[in-house]
């Protein structure tokens, strides 16, 4: 009964969305306030109904109602409660329901926080939100009903894929979706602006915090996914250029560009048409990710149960949403009023330069991701595109971007003084070159890859450059006594920028070091045997069987010593899950400033059995903690910027000015 209620609520939500997509739009066109006002209550009602449907499916999982196909194929009574709940979005239908729930939540957000928005803009944006909602509700109801019954119900469920039974992964999809769907806000406002034919600073000031929030959440989602891959796949890597990873990286890159170009719109009233295009592209890439994962056009470790009928449906949605909005853009954007002009050497110019590099980066990732499909479609055979392509095409594009990134915040708006900025960065540049040379020396010249020196130099340039910018803003060297007060008085958005840019510098250190100098040792290790890796002596002391809630683990006990002094114990596991039967590796990781010691236990020696020893894999991954710290700083920077007071007091500016005149 509860499941049927959920199903019915979805149908009602579809009806409400149809009203929300049409009446306010017509009202905005004819200037009828009452029609436009329909959007608010409609978005609230839509959220209630979709939320009810989500709660109904959640109830099915929590009570293990195996008469639902969805629950029976993805849950099991033995599963811990956390994973019963996470099971809701651990499958195609449920994750789609989560998608529309979040979409409705954002719609509600516009209604709740958007009281001061111009009514026409608000009505149009909510109508566009409702159109997206209609598309996805139809998709759910017609092709992927999560409330389908199974008769007779099985005695127990199939269990959630054990790979997904992990706290990191339980929260990875919702966060990622909050990011993807969050970009729908920028999209809806971009379409509304195109319909209105007007983009101004107030528009940018409204769009920016939502984009920033979505960006922070997407960053978090990607980080959680990488972190999970790092400690659970047991290969010591954290990024694999898998199509679905790329599907999350592309909107991230486009979203980062959008974030920065929206600053130019807000502060300088320029780059308006480009910002609108980026908003469309960012959300379009989010939708594309959904299409790639669920249609079966590409193979990926993440692929959901795929079905060409579903693929065709999402493609139709993609064509309507992205094709429609790009057409609208082609028609309306040329008629929009051009904004402020600026010289190529200026802060706007630097931001635009990096915008273009970011977008090109996203385009190369798109090309690499789709290339297997292109080759297959043209009959060139089945191929796969791996890390070498991305490393040699995408990463070099990011080099000039990072170089300019350190300079841009120091440049003046409108017309910058490149000579002056470079003069102030002279010392930073010198140190960066010294660090690069030192890195080259320390790794023994060509004993390591050449780019490690470049990476460290680049990270130094960005990190110190950002700090130099901060020092200059607070006049640290001119007036050191007042500097701390000046630091406190800096706008939060400035602090956000400094932290995020510095975070990227840390990230580059981790990326470079772990890519260049990871050491690995795979062997059969007997109980009591010691293996040395990166100066650590790793001894296998014992192996025992440990029962978990729905698995049996083989746990290895290792002691770690350095120069004969015992310093730690590490216990990696290999778990055998029963439902569905599948082995899962859980690595033991010991983090330090210089890097992670990473220990994995495998099966007994295939020939000699347990007496002959166990397969163990040991890694030393240099500077990996820098990478996570850098990623976290990106998020923290975003959050602090989000707390800037001009988002709270600045938005009514347009309304206030309108009443004055």
């Amino acid at each position: 009964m509860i499941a049927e209620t959920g199903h019915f609520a979805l149908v009602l939500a579809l009806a409400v969305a149809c009203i929300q997509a049409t009446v306010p739009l017509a009202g905005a066109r004819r200037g009828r306030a009452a029609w436009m006002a329909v959007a608010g209550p409609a978005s609230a009602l839509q959220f209630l109904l979709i939320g009810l449907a989500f709660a109904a499916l959640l109830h099915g999982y929590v009570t293990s109602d195996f008469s639902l196909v969805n629950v029976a194929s993805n849950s099991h009574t033995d599963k811990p409660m956390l994973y019963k709940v996470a099971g809701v979005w651990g499958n195609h239908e449920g994750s789609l329901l989560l998608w529309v729930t979040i979409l409705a939540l954002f719609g509600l957000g516009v209604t709740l926080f958007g009281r001061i928005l111009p009514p026409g803009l608000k009505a149009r944006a909510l109508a566009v939100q409702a159109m997206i909602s209609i598309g996805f509700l139809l998709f759910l109801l017609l092709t992927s009903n999560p409330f389908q019954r199974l008769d007779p119900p099985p005695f127990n469920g199939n269990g959630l894929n054990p790979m997904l039974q992990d706290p990191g992964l339980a929260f990875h999809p919702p966060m990622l979706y909050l990011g993807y769907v969050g970009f729908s806000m920028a999209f809806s406002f971009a379409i509304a602006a195109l319909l209105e034919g007007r983009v101004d600073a107030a528009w940018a000031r409204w769009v920016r915090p939502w984009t920033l929030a979505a960006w922070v959440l997407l960053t978090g989602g990607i980080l959680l996914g990488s972190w999970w891959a790092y400690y659970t796949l047991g290969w010591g890597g954290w990024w694999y250029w898998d199509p679905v990873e790329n599907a999350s990286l592309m909107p991230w890159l486009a979203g980062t560009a959008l974030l920065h170009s929206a600053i130019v719109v807000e502060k300088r009233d320029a780059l308006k048409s480009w910002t609108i295009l980026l908003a469309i592209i960012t959300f379009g890439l989010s939708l594309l990710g959904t299409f790639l994962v669920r249609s079966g056009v590409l193979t990926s470790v993440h692929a959901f149960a795929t079905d060409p009928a579903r693929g065709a449906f999402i493609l139709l949605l993609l064509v309507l949403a992205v094709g429609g909005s790009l057409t609208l853009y082609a028609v309306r954007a040329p008629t929009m009023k051009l904004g402020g002009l600026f010289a190529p050497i200026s802060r706007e110019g630097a931001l635009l330069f990096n915008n273009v590099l970011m977008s090109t980066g996203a385009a190369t990732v798109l090309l690499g991701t789709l290339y297997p499909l292109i080759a297959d479609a043209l009959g060139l055979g089945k191929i796969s595109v791996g890390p070498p392509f991305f490393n040699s095409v995408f990463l070099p594009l990011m080099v000039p971007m990072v170089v300019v990134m350190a300079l841009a915040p120091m440049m003046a708006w409108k017309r910058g003084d490149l000579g002056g900025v470079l003069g102030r960065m002279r010392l930073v540049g010198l140190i960066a070159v010294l660090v690069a040379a030192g890195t080259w020396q320390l790794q023994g010249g060509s004993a390591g890859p050449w780019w490690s020196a470049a990476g460290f130099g680049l990270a130094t340039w960005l990190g110190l450059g950002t700090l130099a910018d901060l020092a200059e803003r607070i006049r640290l060297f001119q007036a050191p006594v007042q500097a701390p007060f000046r630091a406190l008085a800096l706008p939060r958005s400035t602090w956000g920028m400094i932290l995020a840019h510095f975070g990227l510098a840390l990230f580059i250190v981790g990326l470079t070091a772990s890519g260049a100098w990871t050491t690995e040792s795979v062997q059969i290790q007997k109980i009591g045997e010691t293996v040395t890796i990166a100066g650590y002596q790793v001894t296998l002391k014992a192996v025992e069987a440990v029962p978990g809630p729905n698995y049996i683990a083989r746990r290895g006990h290792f002691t770690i010593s350095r120069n004969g002094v015992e310093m730690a114990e590490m216990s990696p596991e290999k778990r055998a899950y029963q439902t569905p039967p599948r082995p899962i590796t859980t690595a033991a990781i010991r983090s330090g400033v210089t890097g992670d010691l990473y220990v994995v236990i495998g099966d007994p020696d295939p020939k000699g059995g347990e007496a002959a020893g166990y397969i163990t894999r040991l890694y030393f991954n240099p500077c990996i903690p820098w990478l996570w710290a850098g990623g976290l700083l990106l998020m923290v920077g975003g959050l602090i910027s989000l707390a800037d007071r001009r988002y709270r007091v600045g938005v009514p500016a347009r309304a206030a000015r309108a009443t004055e005149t």
Partner: protein
Amino acid sequence: MRRALYLLPVLVFVGLTGLFLKGLTLDPREIPSVLINRPVPEMALPPLPGRGEDSGLASADLKGQVSVVNIYGSWCIACLQEHPTLLALKARGEVPIHGIDWRDDPAQGAAWLAKHGDPYQRVGSDPAPGRTAIDFGVTGAPESFIIDREGVIRYKHVGPITPENWRKTLLPIIRELEKR
């Protein structure tokens, strides 16, 4: 000229859409199986308990007649979904269907058949780690293979058999092989 520039994004998108349309008709998972047109792997799988002494599955059993080998397991929900179709096919008697109870406790595999009906002529038990199924190139359950009279694998079907894909794909291949 400036207007044309604004058209560029939508043109790129049209190209991508064409690519995706084509992509939907292709299956990247359909890796041309190296085992197609090769003899079935050497095997002599024991029978399930309670299904008779001589009801196991060996390579020699697959010669002399076109047949279907279906990979299942009592743990597999999609197999339950496919099951009514297999039972209906057995009732029609068009082609013998043999089963491999894959990565399963033989007793559970037998109990599952007793409960839901038994569409198979022969069933071999291939408990974990399921070596024989791996030799067949199985990637998951259910999967079905069409074997010709000489005991050569001619077709691999991934996922549940439905009345529709049976009629459209599998049966024509079987008819063709029977004519040879």
